[in-house]
């Protein structure tokens, strides 16, 4: 089991045994209540880890379950430590809920759904997925807003039966219940098309914000570069494995040549073969490390960019809604003035409608502006995280390569004096 520190580099809140935390724990156990008492924000921690993947079920129904362990002193959480069992679809549910409720925030990405590989369930696939889920929860836990999500709390704490109920309920909800905004949207679409025709006006569907334009281009181009880098990273892993394989076979062949040759030259060949086999093993290990600590982080950032694109879509949608509602409000105002002159009896009704429309328009504006504000902050956070995480990935890569190179140099270096003495023996024997 691993403990991941929830310390984002800007907020160092991971004090496990701070006096405040201890005190509040004691208090809660004395009181017998399950809820934790409030802790100062800079002393809060939320540490989550995903471990122990277990394959359950048979055949097509088979799935992997994971152990999710939470350690926290945040209020609204019952108890300091909690362990639950979750599967991929549970994570997906959490992701969807967060996406709905926190528009404008880059929701940490999930690993791919991958219907095909699931069937094979190779050890590597399972480990890669486990790690990605772990990173997913960790990112949520260190996000200043997401960490307070109620859905997250339920995900982390609900016992099996409650959890099953909760999921069933929300599933039901999403199937039949349409949110008011969606209805409005459909309605507005129809209306705005009519008003377009009536007013003969072109509706601006997109923001004309030059900075935002630049940002959109940046994100798209970044996606391309990351895609290319990730592709190369994948190939690097593959080549490491292939080189390891080739070294192993070479080592074997040379060893057997050495056996055939015999004498000091035979020993020399065996030495060569042995070193090759050793380095082959190191290469395979390095390939594994590269997969986990280099290729996967790059893939994560690709997915993160995807989630940014989702937010960009949300923003565009919010913008459209706001525009349309504001159009509709204007129309209503014009209409109202007309009615005052022509149909005074309708005025009261129209005024009420206008008021409601204005409220909705304000609501849409508020939503849009919230997304814009959040995006701003998120982008800063994104750049910081990217710099840190990719920097770490580069560091790990460099360390791994340095280690491999040192192992290689050592292996061949130690062979040289042996070669000298063996060739000397051969010369002494007259060959």
């Amino acid at each position, binding site marked *: 089991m*691993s*403990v*991941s520190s*929830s310390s*984002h*580099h800007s907020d160092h809140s991971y004090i496990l045994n701070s006096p405040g935390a201890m005190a509040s724990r004691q208090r809660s156990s004395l009181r017998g209540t399950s809820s934790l008492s409030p802790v100062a924000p800079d002393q809060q921690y939320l540490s989550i*880890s995903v471990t122990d993947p277990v394959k359950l079920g048979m055949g097509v129904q088979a799935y992997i379950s994971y152990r999710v362990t939470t350690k926290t002193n945040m209020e609204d959480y019952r108890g300091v430590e909690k362990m639950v069992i979750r599967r991929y679809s549970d994570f997906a549910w959490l992701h969807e809920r967060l996406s709905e409720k926190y528009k404008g925030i880059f929701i940490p990405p999930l690993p791919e759904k991958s219907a095909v590989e699931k069937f094979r369930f190779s050890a590597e696939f399972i480990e890669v997925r486990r790690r990605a889920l772990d*990173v997913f929860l960790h990112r949520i836990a*260190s996000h200043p807003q997401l960490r307070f999500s109620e859905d997250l709390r339920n995900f982390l704490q609900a016992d099996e039966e409650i959890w099953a109920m909760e999921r069933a309920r929300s599933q039901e909800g999403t199937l039949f219940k349409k949110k008011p905004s969606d209805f409005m949207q459909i309605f507005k679409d129809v209306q705005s098309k009519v008003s377009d025709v009536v007013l003969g006006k072109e509706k601006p569907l997109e923001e004309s914000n030059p900075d935002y334009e630049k940002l959109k281009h*940046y994100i798209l*181009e*970044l996606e391309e*570069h*990351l895609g290319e*880098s990730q592709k*190369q990273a994948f*190939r*690097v892993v593959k*080549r490491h494995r*292939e*080189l390891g394989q*080739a070294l192993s*076979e*070479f080592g074997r*062949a*040379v060893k*057997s*040549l050495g056996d*055939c040759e015999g004498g000091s*030259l035979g020993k*020399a*060949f065996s030495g*060569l073969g042995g070193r090759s086999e050793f380095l082959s093993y190191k290469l395979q290990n390095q390939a594994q490390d590269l997969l*986990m600590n280099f290729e996967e982080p790059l893939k994560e950032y690709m997915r993160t960019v995807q989630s940014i694109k989702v937010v960009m879509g949300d923003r565009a949608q919010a913008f459209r809604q706001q525009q349309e509602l504001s159009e509709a409000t204007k129309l209503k105002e014009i209409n109202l003035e007309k009615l005052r002159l022509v149909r005074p009896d309708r005025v009261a009704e129209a005024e009420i409608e206008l008021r409601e429309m204005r409220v909705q328009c304000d609501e849409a504006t508020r939503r849009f502006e919230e997304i814009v504000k959040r995006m701003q902050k998120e982008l*800063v956070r994104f*750049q*910081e995280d990217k*710099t*840190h*995480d990719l*920097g*770490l990935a*580069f*560091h790990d890569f*460099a*360390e791994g*390569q*340095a280690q491999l*190179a*040192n192992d*290689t*140099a050592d292996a*061949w*270096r130690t062979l*040289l004096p042996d*070669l*000298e003495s063996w*060739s000397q023996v*051969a010369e002494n024997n007259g*060959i």
Partner: protein
Amino acid sequence: MTGSEINYKPLEDDNPSRTDAMETLTLGQAPQTYLSNSDYRSAISASLSVNDSHPLAPSKQGSPIQLLQEPLEIDEDPFEDNYPDHLIVEPSYASEEVFVSCSGEASSNGSASFVHNNSTLSRSPTTLRTEILSISVARPEKAQEASGTLVTAGSSFVTYLILTRTNMPEYCNTDFSVRRRFRDIVTLADRLAESYRGYFIPSRPEKSVVESQIMQKQEFVEQRRVAIEKYLRRLAAHPVIRKSEELRLFLQSEGKFPLSPSLDMASRMLDGAAKLPQQLFGDGTMSIAPQEVSQPAKSGRDLVRMFKELKHSVTIDWGGAKPLIVEEDKEFIEKKESVKNYERHLLNASQKAEALVKAQEEMSEVMGELGLAFIKLGKFESEQAISNVQRSHASNVKAFATASVKASRFSREANIQGVKQLDRFHEYLGLIQAAHSAFSDRSNALLTVQTLMSDIALMNTRVEKLTVASSKVFGGDKSRNWKIEELKETVKTTEKARDSAQTEYNKIKEHNRAELERFAFERHRDFFAMLKGFARTQVEYAEKKADLWTKLAEESSELAVHRHRAAN
């Protein structure tokens, strides 16, 4: 063989003109030879330090690969890379030949003492000798055959410039060049195979089936040029063959290559067919000139002999006549088997070495491409940077990308060396092929001897029968007696031939033995050198890469402190 052809044999032949030449040669060289023998120890210790720095160490600028790929500039020294240490070195049994004939023991009986002397000295470390024979092949050119015949109307072919630099006294010049075509190489190879039976003769480059069409391609011509050069250099590296007259004529004689392709199938068959009537319609005398037995019957010159030896070999196989010397054959068979077994392992090692080299190449390639992708990313981030965080990120990316590209270059350089070094495996496979041929020479020679011996036995039996029959006739049977006399004559001739064949067989056996020793010696020398070179190169480049990556890791180490990725 017809008399007009020059017969070039290794030294202990009865050809008087040759011995004269040898004597002049050895007299001229005597001081050196005596010196090398008496100051043996000091010469050895001097040579050992030279041998330490093996030519395959990666220090050479203007590497051979470059040389091979670029067209030859007239100012460049074509022999720059020609000279691995072992070409300077003279395997002692070659010098022993000189020594022995100098003291006047040059005769066929001297072969016994020759063998003895050879065996003691050939085990000792090599001495420094200054006989150089450097060869380069360059400037392929198209040429037109002068339309002499009605059949072939001036077909085009390629000639190659063969440049030689030498200080060997047999060559009356130090620097010279001639133009040769591939057909001449084939002739040279065939003639060497004839003259040097029992030796491990390097195999020549292959002919091409669809030559005329393929020859148009620049690439193929270049490949062939390289192959020819490699072949000639291998010949020059062989202690016995480098002194051959055939090679000298090839390298030196201006104009058309003077040796005719005596093993040309067509003329072989023609010669054989011409002889056949004489043999068949003669009085059943199967006379074989002694000098003919020096060639295997299977060369097709003598169809009758070919059939006889074939019949004889079949007889042997069916448990008829006993093979000559059983133990030696058994030892020989074991030796052949062990060479075959070694060949199998060597082939496997060679193939896996090739695969390894390819995997290394692909690795360096991918590291380079990784670096390029990140250079692009870094550039992009740098251009779009609107905060210090982004700028710092861009510089991280660039540092990483640069390291990756540098590492890729190191890997590639290491691999270029590795290719050359590990090619030794492939080279020795070729040498084993030569060994197989040499072993065949021996088997063929043995077959010739045994065939002749059984002929003699048969003829003697016939003589006996005729004698008995003749004695029964009163007053002597004139025709039978005449036949007996004739047969006795033939027996005498055949016995001479048998003796000759026996000598030839013994010679070939000795060549085999000496070559096997040389093979073992050179194999040890070459493979140890290869292994040392390979290990050194790997260490060198691994250290460079380690430095590179360690520096990068150290520069980014502060990030490891803030590790907030989940530990496994």
